[in-house]
């Protein structure tokens, strides 16, 4: 299980984008890869998309969503990708620190050489399409209903109206019909179908579910529970046409009215977002505006096909692994300077070993406590003394300077860190 505090690559989210990124990072040389997932299992939304049609492009197979996810889950686990399930990421910093929480560990504080954001997208809700009327129970997004019906085993109603002719809406119309519900109507405000024609045929036509284009919900009726919706036709400017209203009795209204990339964490990490896509600005490696923070899948822009999300994840994971490797190399090359006995801080915080090959490096520090007697200012690598300098006394108000001479280059090349101490002579 994940108990390390530092990873080469951390992936946030385990949908198709996150799984592909983790697999690809591992295959491209990342030493340890961790996926953080807020759900109890890997796979993301694919687990509730039980209909087939996934994988035609990338796998040349026609699979249901859970099967498509399972193939990538199996591959990730076989490669040794670590997972933290049932864990919510609360914050990501531009320095690639991740704060997360779960029931077992409380608060987790992790560091990563590279991060892949793969949080996917969210459905537009009633508030975002401003549907007038009362606020009874029985108004849900299509994806929420899909989760209940396909995963948790709840039917959210008996008589449905679906607003929006996107693929999720049409697929849910068929699914609800399979489970014994009556789908009274699918309403679409646009003058054309917004999903695929094949889904119109096999989800709506096959089950005689009427579709009305240029129609929307004018108002929701019902006190505690939806009792009906009032539909209305709209003109070419989307204005309701008076006299075309119709009361459609139903107990549930499902909304299939668009998806928005989910970028709460990206924003916290200081990632710049494109106001048009709602996702991060990215380069051809899917790196965001923050170095070392990559993004993959619907968190960038909403894709038509899962296959393309997988491809984006593979590329982002590869880029993250390459970045992480450069960070690792840089860490080996740079020596951290740690304040030891009676040293409050040292500047610089780290030294490029190679710069010692060509010249001296000046270190400056302040002591914690005054010592009014001769002292040594020592630089050590573990127990081994690298260099030292005598001072007649030290005081916190007077900065101490010490030169790390070029001649110690060979000695510190193998060192992992140096510590500084001010001790009595």
């Amino acid at each position, binding site marked *: 299980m994940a108990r390390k505090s530092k990873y080469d690559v951390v992936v946030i989210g385990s949908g198709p984008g996150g799984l592909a990124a983790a697999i690809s990072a591992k295959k491209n040389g990342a030493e340890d890869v961790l996926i953080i997932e807020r759900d*109890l299992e*890997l796979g993301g939304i694919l687990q509730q998309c039980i209909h087939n049609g996934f994988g035609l492009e990338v796998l040349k197979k026609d699979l249901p969503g859970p*099967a498509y996810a399972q193939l990538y889950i199996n591959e990730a*686990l076989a490669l040794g990708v670590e997972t933290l399930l049932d864990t919510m990421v609360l914050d990501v910093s531009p320095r690639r620190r991740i704060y997360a929480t779960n029931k077992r560990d409380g608060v987790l504080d992790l560091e990563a050489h590279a991060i892949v954001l793969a949080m996917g997208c969210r459905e537009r809700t009633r508030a975002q399409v401003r549907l007038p009327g009362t606020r009874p129970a029985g108004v849900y997004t299509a994806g929420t209903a899909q989760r209940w019906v396909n995963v948790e*085993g709840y039917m959210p109603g008996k008589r449905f109206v679906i607003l929006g002719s996107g693929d999720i809406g049409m697929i849910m119309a068929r699914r609800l019909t399979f489970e014994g519900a009556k789908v009274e109507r699918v309403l679409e405000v646009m003058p054309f179908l917004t999903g695929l*024609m*094949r889904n*119109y*045929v096999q989800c709506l036509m096959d089950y005689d579910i009427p579709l009305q284009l240029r129609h929307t919900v004018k108002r929701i009726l019902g006190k505690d529970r939806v009792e009906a919706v009032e539909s209305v036709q709209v003109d070419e400017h989307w204005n309701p046409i008076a006299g075309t209203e119709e009361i459609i009795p139903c107990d549930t209204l499902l909304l299939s009215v668009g998806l928005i990339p989910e970028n709460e964490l990206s924003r916290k990490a200081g990632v710049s977002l494109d106001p048009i896509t709602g996702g991060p600005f990215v380069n051809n490696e899917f790196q965001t505006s923050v170095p070392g923070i990559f993004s993959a899948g619907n968190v960038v822009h909403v894709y038509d096909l899962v296959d393309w999300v997988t491809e984006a994840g593979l590329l982002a994971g590869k880029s993250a692994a390459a970045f992480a490797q450069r960070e690792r190399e840089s860490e080996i090359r740079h020596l951290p300077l740690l304040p030891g006995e009676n040293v409050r801080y040292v500047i610089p915080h780290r030294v490029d070993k190679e710069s010692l090959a060509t010249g001296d490096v000046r270190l400056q520090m302040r002591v914690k406590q005054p010592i009014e007697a001769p002292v040594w200012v020592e630089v050590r690598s573990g127990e081994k003394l690298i260099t030292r300098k005598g001072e007649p006394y030290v005081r916190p108000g007077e900065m101490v300077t010490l030169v790390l001479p070029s001649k110690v280059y060979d000695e510190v090349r193998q060192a992992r860190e140096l510590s500084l101490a001010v001790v009595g002579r």
Partner: protein
Amino acid sequence: MEEETRVICITCPKGCALDVTREGATVLEIRGGGCKRGQEYVKAELADPRRMVATTVRIRGGLHPLLPVYTAAPFPKGRIADLLAELRTLELRVPVKMGEVVLKNALGTGIDILASRTMTRLKEKNGEM
């Protein structure tokens, strides 16, 4: 007597519309559509329409109370309701592995019903067993 019908092909995401002239059960002419698969689809659709079916089956002992399943091949359209009724009577037990047959030769059609995912006992993690 000749009859005109329009059939929308669902073989691929393009969704071509094909116009068919037929006399009784005999297809006289198919017009439109971009490929051979469309012609085949129309003939099959008029003679013996079939659909891929994906649904869920009850399962005990796993993370969720339902296991997603699907038909190994397109299923006769007229018998989908019977298939769903049959699947509603099933109750499985974990563990089940992706691709495992959960109902063999459904309704005598020769078509198997397969598990869409692996579901292990609740204590284990999902994934490969």
